[in-house]
């Protein structure tokens, strides 16, 4: 049975048995190149649900504070390995009630970066197929077709994924994917190297250019599964006005730094913010850097163990920082 069939079956059963009020998975959007979050309430509709390497949405977003409707709904949802870490991060802090969740873990061998594809074609992508595992077939509105290796067009984080299998789930859709030896291999942050090698002045100039494009739409913050303040976000606050409502490169960067500090120790770099950004600011790199430093400081990976606490809510007398 394919993973997709597994998901449909779990969803249909959970809905039939009234274990959940609704089930969140993925389905096709306005064409086959776009997958979107699906909210299924009727077991008969479970066959809308799909699983393929376009299912990038982290559905944990939809169970955080203020998201479920009604607030006490029992929710079933699918999580990939990276998504599960955000769920674990929420559970570590008791920010979601796990008794109200029914989690289907979906082992994942990589998600396609649709934006990478978009940049390969001038015409709009209207169709994406997966003729076999590891292959992506793209068709544009102009009729151009191209077959690509999935590995070449995956999201930046997928190449060195340490957790292809969900870390928390009630059920698993199909067999587990092969895991890297986590004792042997350290997290990989080679994507940061190019930026890190820049001089201070070049970094500042680059950041100015990048953050001038930010429009403060709050997509990064609202899709962030571990960012729970939402309507109370301090970035919107006028009193205190930590971040000016003016939109400019400095204010926008500070805005992002607020988000970064508030998810520090809880953000496992799932990349939801990065993918949501309409102006394609590489937010993932900022969060990857943060996680690199946190790993360097504490040897800590956010959202991995249920019994851990995010590192900035606790302390250790043996910490060796400062002079």
């Amino acid at each position, binding site marked *: 049975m394919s993973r997709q069939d597994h998901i449909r079956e779990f969803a249909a059963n959970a809905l039939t048995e009234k274990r959940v009020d609704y089930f969140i998975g993925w389905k096709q959007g306005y064409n086959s190149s776009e997958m979107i979050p699906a909210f299924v309430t009727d077991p008969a509709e479970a066959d809308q649900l799909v699983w393929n390497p376009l299912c990038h949405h982290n559905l944990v977003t939809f169970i955080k504070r203020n998201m479920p409707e009604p607030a006490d709904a029992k929710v079933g949802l699918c999580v990939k390995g990276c998504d599960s870490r955000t769920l674990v991060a929420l559970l570590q802090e008791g920010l979601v009630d796990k008794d109200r969740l029914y989690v289907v873990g979906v082992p994942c061998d990589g998600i396609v970066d649709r934006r990478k594809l978009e940049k390969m074609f001038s015409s709009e992508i209207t169709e994406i197929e997966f003729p076999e595992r590891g292959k992506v077939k793209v068709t544009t509105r102009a009729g151009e077709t191209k077959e690509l290796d999935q590995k070449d067009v995956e999201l930046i984080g997928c190449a060195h994924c340490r957790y292809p299998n969900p870390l928390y789930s009630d059920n698993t859709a199909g067999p587990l994917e092969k895991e890297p030896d986590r004792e042997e291999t350290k997290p990989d942050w080679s994507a940061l190297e190019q930026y890190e090698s820049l001089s201070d002045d070049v*970094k500042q100039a680059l*950041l*100015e250019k990048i953050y001038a494009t930010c429009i403060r739409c709050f997509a990064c913050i609202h899709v962030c599964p571990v960012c729970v303040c939402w309507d109370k976000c301090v970035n919107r606050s006028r009193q205190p006005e930590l971040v000016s409502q003016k939109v400019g490169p400095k204010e926008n*960067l*500070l805005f992002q*730094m*607020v988000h970064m500090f508030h998810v520090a120790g809880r953000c496992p770099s799932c990349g939801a913010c990065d993918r949501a950004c309409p102006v394609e600011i590489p937010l993932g790199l900022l969060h990857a850097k*943060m996680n690199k430093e946190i790993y360097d400081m504490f040897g800590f990976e956010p959202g991995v163990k249920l019994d851990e606490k995010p590192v900035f809510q606790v*302390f250790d007398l043996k910490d060796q920082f*400062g002079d």
Partner: protein
Amino acid sequence: MAEATNNQASGAATTGAAPGGAGAPDRPVKVVGIVCNWCSYAGADTAGVGRFKQPANLRLIRVPCTGRIDPLFALKAFEKGADGVLISGCHPGDCHYSEGNYYARRKFELAERMIHHLGIPPERFKWTWVSASEGQRWQKVVTEFVAGVQKLGPREGKAL
């Protein structure tokens, strides 16, 4: 020791002739300090009582505890054009509230690393511990930090 540092301190750091590169504004650097009430603010008091001369570029903001300092204050200061930010509190183990600086040091360490990541040189941000009795240490910290910032000159932050 105090004598030796005194002389350099007030002279070098405040003249304002900065080697900040072409087009850099010509003014003395300005450093924002955020210190805890019990140790470092009192340490600065002790330095004052001891008449330990220091460069005049530092402006102190008093808070009860380093645990009260949101690292974003430092970023906010940079956004607003600070040339340097200095944070200081009680030595680990000495926190008046017993735990504040343990939390703080984790946050400051991350802040420091991220601040460098944003292209703000390490010399412009420092966090350290100065106790109420360490007037001389306070003098040393301030003098060295301001000298480091002055060497880089006034900042023209493009992003933050």
